[in-house]
């Protein structure tokens, strides 16, 4: 299985891709690596940070495998895409590129994951042309310092996150 490494302000965590379940998504993600950007904390899906995919790194992938919408666990990494007309309000905390269409990695780092308002969003889970949520990787371990750094984003603001191919 191919592996990814996530680097967040001096901390790292390694994830394994689910290429046996969602090979197309894994190939597409693998092709754009490395990606980096300023990660922001979620405000609907509990302990989750997001890395928005920018410029030529934007992915617009079809649904693949079982939808992970609302059913995630700490350590899960989800490819998320949301159509432009489905934006939730003004999204002033996002850069202008993401105030409409959203393409991102959703990284669930602790309990609770996916609880909160994200679990009761039926209008957005019924139509796969409006939203795609594909679980494509899971951390093989969640180091405490990486988890702490994710939590700090809530209070301290954006932090640079780098996602690379992991090669031993």
């Amino acid at each position, binding site marked *: 299985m191919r592996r990814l490494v996530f680097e967040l302000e001096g901390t790292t965590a390694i994830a394994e891709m689910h290429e046996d379940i969602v090979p197309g998504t894994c190939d597409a993600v693998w092709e754009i690596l490395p990606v980096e950007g300023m990660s*922001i*904390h*979620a*405000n*609907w*899906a*509990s*302990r*989750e940070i997001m890395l928005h995919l920018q410029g030529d790194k934007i992915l617009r992938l079809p649904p693949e495998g079982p939808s992970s919408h609302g059913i995630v666990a700490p350590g899960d990494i989800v490819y998320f895409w949301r159509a432009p007309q489905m934006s*939730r*309000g*003004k999204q*002033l*905390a996002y850069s202008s590129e993401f105030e409409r269409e959203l393409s991102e990695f959703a990284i669930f780092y*602790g*309990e*609770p994951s996916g*609880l*909160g*308002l*994200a679990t*009761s969003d039926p209008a957005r889970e019924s139509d796969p042309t409006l939203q795609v949520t594909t679980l494509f990787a899971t951390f093989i371990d969640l180091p405490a310092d990486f*988890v702490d750094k994710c*939590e700090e984003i*809530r*209070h*301290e*603001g*954006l932090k640079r996150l780098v996602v690379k191919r992991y090669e031993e």
Partner: protein
Amino acid sequence: MTRVRIALGEVEAFAELDEVAAPRTTAWLRELLPIRNRAIHSMENGREVYALLDTQGPIPEENQTIYQCVGDLFVYHKPAIFVEPAWPRHMRTFLVIGFIYERDSAIRGMSGPLATNIVGRITQGMDALAHEAPRMRKEGFGEIAISVV
């Protein structure tokens, strides 16, 4: 009508306490003011900003709703797991005061909507809060202070 000032980061807003609909909760809150604490952005409810209160109440069940609106000022018991990743295990909730600054938000518990006591309404400066909260989400959260004018 008691007027309170809400200072969040670099902006301020004003609210009027609803002493008619929530007489006991507003009386309790007036005794508690002024409040100054770390502002926290919700990770589960959408566009909510809140602060922990230095008490666990109790507060009466009064003027409650699960359909909070932008500009409502409310108090409620927030599940501790949404506040800190490692909370004191003898506690299951924290009493908080907060507000919603943009729609598509609703207060949730662990398994569904959570009733909140509406204690007042932000009548001035809502737009400033609605811009300051996203800024702080990107640049880091500071303090929130609430005091009687």
